[in-house]
């Protein structure tokens, strides 16, 4: 009897569990169907919006600005913004200005500013892009707040927009930030600051003398990534630094002959990594008389120093191919001659 009662309880529990599982499965199925229907409806709505606005944007792009524009309906706003931002990123010149004119006539600037504050994450990212393309000065405070957020994608998108809104002000704000945020790749920093290379150079020149040795290498690498020619006094101070990372970063940034004496002195540095960078820098800015210095380095005990010295000899502007052939023939050190031959062969194959 007890066994039968227990068995009934188990069967009832199993039945109820099965029923609950079936109910949950049905609810889940309904939810999937509902989401699928919503997605299809949104896709149809987006397609209608694109079909209505694409011809108008295309006409504006090719210089046939429509005299009047239809009102932008609420449901059309996001697909329109996505298309508009995509076209802005794919085109340049007068087409960008034409797209901006269409957006301003439709009141997109005000709408995007609202979205920047109240929208969800994807909407805020999209609106930052739009406001950047529009060079919208009114969005500056909200973009600054966005740039301070811990979400890297959000912060970097806001910085991208800020540099388009006001390049000098953005460079002043961003250069110290990019120096401090070491987790951001240099290529990202350079990509964003490329819109403001002159103000960024000015900001770096002001900042470099105030930076400690821990921050200097990154600041110098940012200058290098932007291909900036820093003032000789600023670069010279870095090349005379007792810190090896600072000296190496400084050498990588040598683009003018102003610091030639410092570069030449570093060819004899005790650290081979410094000698490598000094050889490369001399190749970029050296004179004919520097060939002898680089020939000396062809006999260095480190392979990389010899290799970079050989490459630098090929880069020296005053040396012709015939000069190099004569130089190679005159080398008595077999390793040095082999290295120069290798560099010459590689250069011929490029």
């Amino acid at each position, binding site marked *: 009897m007890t066994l039968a009662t227990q068995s009934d309880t188990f069967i009832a529990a199993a039945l109820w569990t099965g029923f609950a599982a079936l109910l949950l499965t049905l609810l889940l199925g309904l939810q999937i169907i509902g989401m699928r229907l919503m997605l299809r409806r949104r896709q149809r709505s987006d397609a209608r919006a694109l079909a209505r606005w*694409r*011809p108008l944007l*295309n*006409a504006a*792009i*090719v*210089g046939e600005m429509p005299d009047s524009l239809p009102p932008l309906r609420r449901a059309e706003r996001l697909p329109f913004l996505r*298309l508009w931002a*995509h*076209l802005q*990123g*794919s*085109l*340049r*010149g*007068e*087409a960008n200005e034409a797209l901006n004119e269409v957006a301003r006539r439709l009141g997109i600037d005000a709408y995007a500013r609202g979205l920047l504050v109240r929208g969800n994450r994807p909407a805020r990212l999209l609106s930052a892009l739009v406001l950047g393309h529009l060079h919208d000065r009114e969005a500056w405070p909200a973009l600054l707040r966005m740039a301070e957020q811990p979400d890297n994608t959000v912060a970097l998108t806001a910085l991208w927009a800020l540099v388009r809104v006001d390049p000098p002000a953005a460079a002043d704000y961003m250069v110290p930030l990019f120096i401090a945020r070491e987790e951001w790749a240099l290529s990202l920093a350079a990509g964003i600051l490329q819109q403001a290379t002159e103000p960024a150079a000015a900001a770096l020149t002001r900042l470099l003398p105030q930076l400690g040795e821990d921050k200097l290498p990154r600041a110098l690498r940012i200058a290098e990534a932007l291909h900036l020619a820093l003032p000789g006094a600023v670069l010279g101070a870095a090349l005379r630094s007792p810190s090896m990372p600072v000296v190496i970063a400084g050498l990588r940034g040598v683009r003018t002959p102003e610091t030639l004496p410092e570069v030449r002195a570093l060819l004899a540095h005790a650290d081979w990594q410094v000698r490598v960078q000094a050889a490369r820098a001399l190749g970029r800015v050296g004179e004919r008389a520097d060939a002898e210095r680089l020939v000396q380095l062809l006999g260095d005990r480190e392979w990389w120093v010899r290799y970079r010295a050989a490459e630098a000899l090929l880069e020296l502007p005053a040396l012709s191919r015939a000069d190099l052939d004569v130089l190679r023939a005159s080398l008595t050190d077999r390793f040095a001659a082999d290295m120069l031959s290798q560099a010459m062969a590689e250069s011929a194959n490029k």
Partner: protein
Amino acid sequence: MQPESAPVVLVVEDDEHISQVLRFMLERQGYQVVHMADGRAASSHIAASNPPALVLLDVMLPYVDGFEIVQLIRAQENWRDVPVLMLTAKNTERDTVRALDAGANDFVIKPFQPQELLARVRRFLRPGA
């Protein structure tokens, strides 16, 4: 609707929005546009169809890239002399050199200026060009 005699431009571009812009621009100039959205479709089209007056070719394409397509065009007897204008990405000087080495006649850097692109297309499609 373009007249039957209008020069045909084959556009090979996987970005739907950009291909629509290119179609609009080219049709406005009186050209007929045939669009292929990926490298595989473009390869089949080249193997099976008559040559167009010009090919506008993106470098980055699904399945078969633009460099291979231009080589295919140059290897095809009746397509060999078709001018090929390639769309290459900014900051990829190597791509530009590779495109020209592969046999492209000219290139336009993305992001592109629509009027500049049209001027380059016209240069090849001018009567007697």
